[in-house]
């Protein structure tokens, strides 16, 4: 199967079977590199397992991170509104 179709299929498997929509799968030589963020280490390993199942001949490099749940270090103060096109956003 061509890489493009395989990567598309993997992305759909992760979303439709694993409910993980924020994972990127890329191929680097013989290695499949996984990036993105999930809520637990268990989910991180689950994504790796699902990908490995579909490409048993290849190595899988798991660079998925578990998102932190710390208290915010600071608040953002939203000062009075600036005029339209006043410099924020793109």
């Amino acid at each position, binding site marked *: 199967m061509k890489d493009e179709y395989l990567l598309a299929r993997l992305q759909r498997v992760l979303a439709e079977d694993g*409910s993980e929509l*924020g994972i990127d799968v890329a191929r680097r030589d013989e290695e499949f590199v996984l990036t993105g*963020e999930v*809520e637990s280490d268990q989910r991180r390993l689950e994504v790796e397992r699902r990908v490995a199942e579909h490409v048993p001949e290849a190595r899988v490099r798991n660079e998925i991170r578990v998102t932190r*749940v710390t208290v*915010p270090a600071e*608040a*953002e103060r939203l000062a009075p509104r*600036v005029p339209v096109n006043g410099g924020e956003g*793109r």
Partner: protein
Amino acid sequence: MSIRVAAVGDVHIDADVQGRYRPALDEIGEHADVLLLAGDLTRHGTVAEAACVAREFGGLAVPVVAVLGNHDYHSDEVPGVTKALEDAGIVVLEGEGTTVDTAGGRLGVAGAKGFGGGFAGRCATAFGEPEMKAFVEHSEASAAKLAKALAALECEVRIALTHYAPVPDTLAGEPLEIYPFLGSYLLGEAIDAVRTQLAIHGHAHAGCERGMTPGGVRVRNVAHPVIRQAYSVFHLDEAC
């Protein structure tokens, strides 16, 4: 005095992460007057997962106001999911508004899930196949509900809460090709139709935090993978 608003989206709670947010949530009263949840509270939208969300975000020191996201619709159990959250005291908005009295003034929150469709000049149109029309009509209906709920709020500071994005600004980092699945300019138009101080959304895990509507309303993407903390806190001045 400011109104202090905490917000997070895309927490995707299930039994495997139960309790993870609690240490940060247990001290939320020191940091905020209200907590907004911007959808995708569950993984698959089951009542069992919603019960986990209710345990995680119920019984806090501040009122909790939520909208649902696409994940919360996945198992076709929306009434049960909503009930589980409401039983825990969480206010769930879908085309409705609620007010919260704080030391900094009366805050109004109007919420709707929203939907995709894309952004001005590059959006889907209700033309052709019935599937295409249904897609766009869902987006239009959601934006109309949000506009109505925003207009009906009687408050000093008004916030729009959605799951889908109202502007493309906060999608920077996502592939351009999927923008039409991440939000709709119709939501932005609804937000700009009424004097709104802040628009909060989630859904775009690879997007960025800050943007602005064409009318000058600040937009914040609080998807958990974007903010990388239990919640973000915004201080809104009365003079906003």
